[in-house]
């Protein structure tokens, strides 16, 4: 293998991760122009107007919710958790792809992560922000939400450290903080590029503050690389732990359909599955609109598809194991739960879920499908819907028919459940629109390291170290020249 790399004739059979014909200058220009351009593109304004309306819908719903209380939702007894927790888990799950791409793929030295990581990290941040709204508001009294944190207070009361709901608070806040730091750290060199490219004084000052005095010094780079690696190391366990803790909210309960040991891995796989689907849902249109085909190449999209295929199969295994467990447990309640799930009043949801999450994504086995952006986009939409349905199936369908038939009750969402959910989608997209317009969505400096000019030729380095000038090179300047 090592010989093959050194061999000049060796050609990587995979398409490159950065398009041809780019150089250091044009990369900066192409990415920075999106941020520094005067005025707005018409399409951007149009799209922004629509998603901003969604945000307004969200804010209005929240205002009404705080005024009237959670009774405006369809939640009831026994279905005490419904859209609020479904949406929370759905959004948190979506965030996971961002961290996986930025942290784990960095540690695994996957060069194809470099163009989509910033984008995916921003998606993580906004998704976690949307997710956080639901538990904060479902308490019904958001003004006493500080009770969730172990703050010394006038009640001399601490949260219950034995409760997974409390671990959840820690997991999600840690996740948000680390993701924010990671995202901002990665942006610093790019803010410096923007500062140096910008023409207007206020832009220079604004980006100058954000760049925190970055001068591209060797010392800066050394510290940056170390800190970035450390943060990646911190984030890596979070990819696995956050959704594991979220799954504990259910798995530690005794409700049939929740009380399963497979939940943590199955939730994590589902989260990455949903996250990559969302990355592609966003990346495919943005790539086309801003002509970023050279940065987000087909190879990136294909790789995302492969990750989806793999995690999708883990999720399918999870569904299968749930069936097996309920049969193997020989517990009346577990078996009834599974029967209710498949053939009960909400049974159709389960079959749509199987269709969206398991059957349709199998198309990705074909290379032709992995190259067809329209097909991929549609499959991703199916996965987005499927992953939402998965949480509906787990949460609502386990609660609405548990041990005692006299306690059974059907769940029906109200209009406010929907305005809240689609409102967060609008809010999420509003944030994405602002991010795309005002922050470099592709890491400029990381793209540059992918250029052929930036690659280190080991032979040349060796020659230089031995004092031999490379063939055809101008001799290095010496002191006193």
């Amino acid at each position: 293998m090592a010989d093959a790399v050194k061999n000049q004739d060796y050609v990587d059979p995979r398409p490159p991760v950065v398009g041809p014909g780019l150089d250091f200058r044009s990369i900066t220009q192409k990415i920075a122009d999106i941020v520094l351009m005067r005025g707005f593109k018409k399409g951007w304004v149009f799209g922004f107007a629509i998603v901003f309306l969604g945000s307004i819908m969200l804010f209005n719903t929240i205002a009404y919710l705080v005024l009237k209380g959670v009774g405006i939702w369809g939640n009831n007894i026994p279905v005490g958790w419904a859209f609020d927790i479904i949406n929370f888990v759905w959004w948190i799950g979506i965030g996971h792809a961002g961290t996986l791409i930025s942290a784990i793929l960095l540690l695994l030295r996957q060069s194809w992560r470099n163009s989509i990581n910033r984008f995916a990290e921003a998606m993580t941040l906004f998704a976690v922000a949307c997710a956080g709204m639901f538990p904060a508001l479902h308490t019904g009294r958001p003004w006493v939400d500080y009770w969730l944190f172990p703050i010394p207070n006038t009640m001399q009361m601490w949260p219950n450290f034995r409760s997974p709901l409390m671990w959840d608070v820690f997991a999600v806040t840690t996740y948000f903080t680390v993701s924010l730091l990671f995202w901002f750290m990665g942006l610093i060199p790019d803010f410096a590029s923007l500062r140096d490219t910008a023409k207007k004084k206020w832009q220079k000052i604004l980006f100058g503050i954000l760049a925190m005095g970055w001068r591209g010094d060797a010392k800066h780079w050394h510290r940056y690389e170390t800190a970035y690696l450390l943060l990646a190391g911190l984030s890596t366990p979070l990819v696995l732990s956050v959704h594991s803790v979220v799954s504990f909210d259910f798995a530690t309960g005794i409700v049939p359909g929740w009380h399963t040991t497979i939940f943590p891995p199955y939730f994590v796989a589902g989260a990455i599955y949903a996250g990559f689907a969302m990355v592609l849902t966003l990346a495919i249109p943005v790539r086309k609109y801003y002509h970023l085909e050279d940065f987000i190449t087909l190879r990136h999209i294909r790789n995302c598809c492969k990750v989806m295929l793999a995690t999708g199969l883990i999720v399918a295994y999870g569904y299968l194991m749930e069936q097996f467990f309920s049969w193997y447990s020989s517990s009346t309640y577990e078996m009834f739960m599974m029967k209710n799930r498949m053939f009960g009043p909400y049974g159709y949801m389960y079959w749509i879920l199987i269709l969206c999450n398991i059957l349709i994504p199998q198309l990705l086995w074909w290379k032709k499908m992995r190259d067809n952006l329209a097909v991929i986009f549609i499959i991703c939409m199916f996965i987005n819907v499927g992953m939402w349905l998965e949480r509906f199936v787990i949460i609502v369908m386990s609660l609405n028919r548990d041990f005692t038939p006299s306690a059974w009750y059907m769940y029906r969402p109200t209009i406010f459940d929907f305005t809240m959910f689609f409102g967060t989608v609008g809010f999420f997209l509003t944030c994405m629109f602002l991010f795309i317009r005002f922050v470099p969505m592709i890491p400029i400096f990381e793209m540059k390291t992918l250029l052929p000019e930036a690659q280190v030729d080991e032979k040349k380095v060796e020659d230089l170290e031995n004092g031999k000038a490379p063939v055809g090179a101008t001799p290095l300047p010496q002191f006193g020249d």
Partner: protein
Amino acid sequence: MPQLFHRSTNTLARLSIVIGVLLAGLVLGLLLEANRTPFVTRAYVAREQPVQFSHKHHVGDDGIDCRYCHTTVETTATAGMPPTKTCMNCHSQLFANSPYLEIVRDSWRLDRPIKWTRVHDLPDFVYFNHSIHVNKGVGCSTCHGRVDLMPLMWNVASLQMEWCLECHRNPENFIRPKSKITEMVWPPKEPDPKEFPNGWNQAVDGPRLVREYKIQPKDVMISCSTCHR
């Protein structure tokens, strides 16, 4: 190109980290402490009442026992607000024509209760019971303060959970003999040598009474469902 920022910016940026952390800590601390101020708890703030009823006069000057008006304090959850009839026991004779008492007489004539302003208002999710406290040796003045010195009523306690827990964790520090429940001054400056031949020492007599009155162990006293059901 001139420098964008003056060289002092470096120092300012570094300082801002320290200042930011200190400021955040300060703001959080102030917010938490603000919850304990009378601005929130309304402790020591006298409330206006429809009738200028003075506990100072009735308790302090006249020496009427608390239970003469708050009749149910030993048997039920609420101490009981006296009906107008209780007022009229005396005031049909005393100050019978005083303009201050016009509202009381109106209430009596029209058979309509006086709308007193509640001073000690616990949240609805607390199931507070007066009788258990009074019957286990928690005196009136322990929570309500020197009522005999209040012209208009105010609360001396914050009524916050930390205040409840202070006693629920260590009842021996506050408990007194049941015979002295309505005593306004407790512990007594000079205990009656007939009643207390050894004097009154909270550190010794407190734990003794806790045993004698069979007050529940601490884990029961501070369990959530003791007060929140």
